[in-house]
């Protein structure tokens, strides 16, 4: 419990590390990196302890009555709704006890409300709860299952209006979701810190780099622990500022500072949506910024549907910019200008998932506002699905390995957004979790590759054949790629499959709606993902080395994080094994642990239905991924064979030259053309046929009728009556315009003079007439 109530220490520690590095870093023997690594190491341990603490807290038997008991760990004053709930429950409780005097006259509500005294617990206390609980959707079924009890602590920040009416608080809201993010952020940060100490060693701003890396972790941790939406905005902006600084780390070069500016400004555009959305929710929730308040009200019909719809659309704009969704995704590939570990930290594992986290945090708003349940299309799902598909297609045309990964990130974020859009909340967070592991591996692997290839990221021109010289990087990259492509039994398979199954009833029951269109788009995205990652591996690790110099494996501070992350990326899928796969049934103690840990059950979360594991869909998507890998492999193998032959010939004659590069680009282009042609061709032809045969027939028929009628009208009415009037009016207007155009001199100051004179005269008329 101590760790849950003192979670604020973790971000505070990182903020302290920022200050220490900034002020004392240059004087330290290792220029400040040791402070950062020590701080993030401690933070990681604290996060793990918090997670353990949450695990026990979450599995404890809850004592008391329904929602009010579940909210017993919410400090008084942090949430109006909870205070209200507790008071109401208390009142009804005593009445209730009076009614049932015969059964058990003990005044339970008074004595054990705040304590965890099990001795007073009664077997029938659950039956009491039903009338006491307010009108929550989960009240009836929530009694048998456990109820999530978030731990909220807060302090007053400012007060608006008359005293006591509206309090701005800040503090920590700890539940499964935020604990999960604590672990993810500190784990990836720890790996990135260790990796960076070798990767950027000797950099001109080494100390500042670590300082801002610390500040970035601090902001992200502050964001995930946010207790009020205002605090969320602060964390959100801090994360944006840190990414601006880190992307522009090498700002002396123009493209880098441009990329930083682009990232910052694009994010500002989306932030407007966040500000408006939060403001709307503030007023809708009766002047409260508390996330708990908003969620309870939104989940239980306390806010009208229309307001929720507007607010959620505003917030989706914020998600578009922060999480790189179409149409505001353009900053993300450019942001690869920053150092590679930063890309791994910011643009794969933590910052860009801030948008996902925000949606997950305020999920009742979206769930109710967009009517996710029982529908077959909504804005959030469309945005996600379009991003997932087109992001994956774009990844084909990139030569820069980091850009491939950037588009891959965009596409995977699209998967998560779609999952949230279709109601597969747990699947989205699970994918966030697994994706953080393997995408960080891929980014750090790309950094290791570029370290070997003289700091170039051009996999087409400067890499190739790396599997022999960089065995550790190669194997971790392979594992992470397989996880990303969703190959059984790596983690990506489980999370991706959960998302796909969450789309609803194509093969089996479960899910919240029937999102078939999104399902198809995501399957296309998954197919492309497997294909472009295979292409990346071919370029980076196979064939002949095309760069210059002798590549060498990176040092242990680079490879050890890679190995740890790749291992985690391979195995974390078992955390959320489904309850049953066909004939096999997993025991309850190992299945759906992640869901149990993370997903809230109770008044502040909507009731969502969980899709069951879907064998046909899983096999289909796995087959899709494998066939994509196979096809790409064959294609490149054949291409590579011819190409290698040509290369060796040319190598004897002219050596490695530009012709080869052009040739390669041609292959690239051909590949893109084939794929996109395959996607676009049939669809375009079908539309064309429909247009020619069906629509044209109707239009032609209508047109013939219209021509006959039109001829008659034209000759009799139009020419004689209408035209006369119109022509007369036109001539008058034209002449009047000719006279008046001299007034329009184009001199603004003349207009200003006229404006002031007219205003003064008009005001004068009022003064004389009224006064």
């Amino acid at each position, binding site marked *: 419990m101590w760790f849950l109530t003192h979670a604020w220490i973790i971000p505070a520690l990182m903020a302290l590390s920022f200050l220490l590095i900034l002020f004392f870093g240059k004087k330290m023997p290792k220029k400040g990196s040791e402070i950062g690594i020590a701080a993030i190491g401690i933070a990681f341990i604290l996060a793990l302890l918090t997670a353990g603490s949450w695990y026990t807290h979450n599995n404890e038997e809850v004592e008391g009555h329904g929602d009010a008991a579940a909210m017993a760990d919410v400090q008084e004053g942090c949430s109006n709704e909870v205070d209200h709930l507790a008071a109401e429950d208390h009142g009804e409780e005593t009445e209730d006890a009076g009614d049932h005097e015969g059964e058990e006259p003990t005044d339970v509500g008074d004595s054990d409300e705040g304590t965890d005294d099990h001795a007073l617990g009664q077997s029938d206390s659950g039956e009491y709860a039903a009338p006491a609980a307010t009108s929550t959707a989960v009240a009836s079924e929530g009694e048998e299952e456990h109820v999530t009890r978030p731990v909220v602590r807060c302090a007053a920040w400012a007060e608006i209006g008359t005293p006591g009416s509206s309090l701005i608080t800040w503090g920590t809201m700890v539940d499964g979701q935020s604990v999960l993010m604590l672990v993810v952020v500190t784990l990836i940060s720890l790996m990135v810190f260790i990796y960076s100490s070798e990767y950027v060693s000797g950099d001109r701003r080494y100390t500042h780099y670590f300082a801002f890396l610390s500040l970035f972790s601090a902001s992200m941790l502050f964001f995930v622990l946010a207790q009020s939406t205002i605090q969320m905005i602060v964390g959100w902006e801090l994360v944006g500022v840190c990414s601006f600084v880190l992307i522009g780390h090498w700002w002396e070069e123009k493209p880098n500072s441009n990329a930083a500016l682009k990232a910052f400004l694009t994010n500002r555009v989306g932030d407007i949506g966040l500000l408006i959305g939060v403001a709307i929710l503030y007023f809708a929730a009766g002047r409260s910024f508390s996330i708990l308040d908003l969620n309870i009200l939104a989940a239980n019909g306390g806010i009208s549907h229309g307001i929720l719809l507007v607010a959620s659309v505003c917030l989706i704009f914020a998600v578009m910019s922060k999480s790189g969704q179409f149409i505001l995704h353009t900053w993300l590939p450019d942001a690869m200008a920053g150092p590679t570990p930063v890309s791994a930290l910011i643009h794969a594992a933590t910052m860009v998932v801030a948008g996902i986290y925000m949606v997950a945090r305020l999920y009742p708003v979206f769930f109710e506002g967009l009517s996710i349940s029982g529908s077959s299309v909504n804005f959030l799902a469309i945005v996600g699905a379009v991003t997932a598909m087109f992001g994956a297609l774009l990844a084909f045309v990139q030569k820069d390995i980091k850009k491939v990964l950037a588009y891959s990130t965009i596409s995977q974020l699209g998967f998560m957004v779609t999952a949230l859009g279709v109601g597969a909340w747990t699947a989205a967070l699970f994918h966030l979790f697994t994706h953080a592991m393997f995408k960080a591996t891929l980014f750090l692997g790309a950094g290791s590759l570029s370290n070997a290839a003289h700091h170039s990221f051009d996999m087409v021109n400067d890499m190739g054949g790396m599997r022999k010289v960089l065995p550790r990087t190669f194997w971790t990259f392979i594992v992470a790629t397989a996880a990303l492509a969703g190959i059984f039994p790596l983690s990506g398979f489980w999370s991706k499959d959960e998302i796909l199954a969450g789309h609803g009833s194509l093969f089996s029951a479960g899910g919240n709606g029937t999102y078939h269109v999104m399902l198809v788009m995501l399957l296309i995205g998954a197919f492309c993902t497997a294909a472009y990652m295979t292409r990346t591996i071919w370029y980076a690790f196979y064939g002949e080395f095309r760069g210059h110099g002798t590549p060498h494996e990176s040092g242990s501070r680079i490879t050890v994080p890679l190995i740890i992350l790749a291992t985690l990326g391979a195995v974390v899928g078992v955390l959320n094994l489904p309850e049953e796969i066909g004939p096999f049934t997993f025991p309850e103690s190992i299945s759906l642990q992640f869901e149990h840990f993370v997903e809230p059950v109770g008044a502040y979360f909507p009731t969502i239905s969980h899709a069951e594991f879907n064998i046909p869909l899983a096999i289909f998507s796995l087959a899709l991924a494998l066939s994509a890998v196979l096809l790409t492999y064959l294609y490149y193998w054949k291409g590579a064979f011819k190409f290698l032959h040509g290369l060796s010939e040319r190598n004897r004659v002219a050596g490695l030259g530009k012709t080869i590069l052009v040739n390669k680009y041609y292959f690239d282009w051909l590949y893109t053309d084939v794929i996109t042609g395959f996607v676009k061709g049939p669809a375009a032809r079908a539309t064309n046929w429909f247009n020619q045969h069906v629509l044209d027939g109707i239009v032609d028929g209508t047109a013939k009728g219209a021509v006959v009628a039109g001829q008659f009208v034209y000759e009799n009415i139009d020419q004689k009556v209408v035209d006369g009037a119109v022509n007369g009016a036109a001539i008058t207007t034209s002449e009047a315009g000719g006279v*008046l*155009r*001299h*007034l*329009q*001199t*184009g*001199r*603004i*100051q003349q207009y*200003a*003079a006229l404006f*002031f004179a007219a205003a003064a005269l008009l005001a004068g008329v009022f003064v004389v007439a009224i006064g």
Partner: protein
Amino acid sequence: MLLTQFLLLAAILFSIGVYGVIVRKNGVLVLMSVELMLNAVNINLIAFSTYHGLGGQVFALFVIAVAAAEVGVGLAIVLLIYRNRRSVDIDQLDELKG
């Protein structure tokens, strides 16, 4: 002291500002005249706030903030005009001519 004396001073400053906006050719000078007008308004706000509590002072502060924003953007625009035309002569900007 009378309320009227402050209001009259503000009126004089405002009118001078109006004159400046109409007559000055240089973009920077036009912005200065706008500042005169804004300050005249601020005097009014403060003078009236002696009757109505602190709201007037708060809004005078807001006017100062908005004026700072206005000068920033205004000067940026003037700078852009200068870069494009090598002159900040507002008289020459007559693309609106009919």
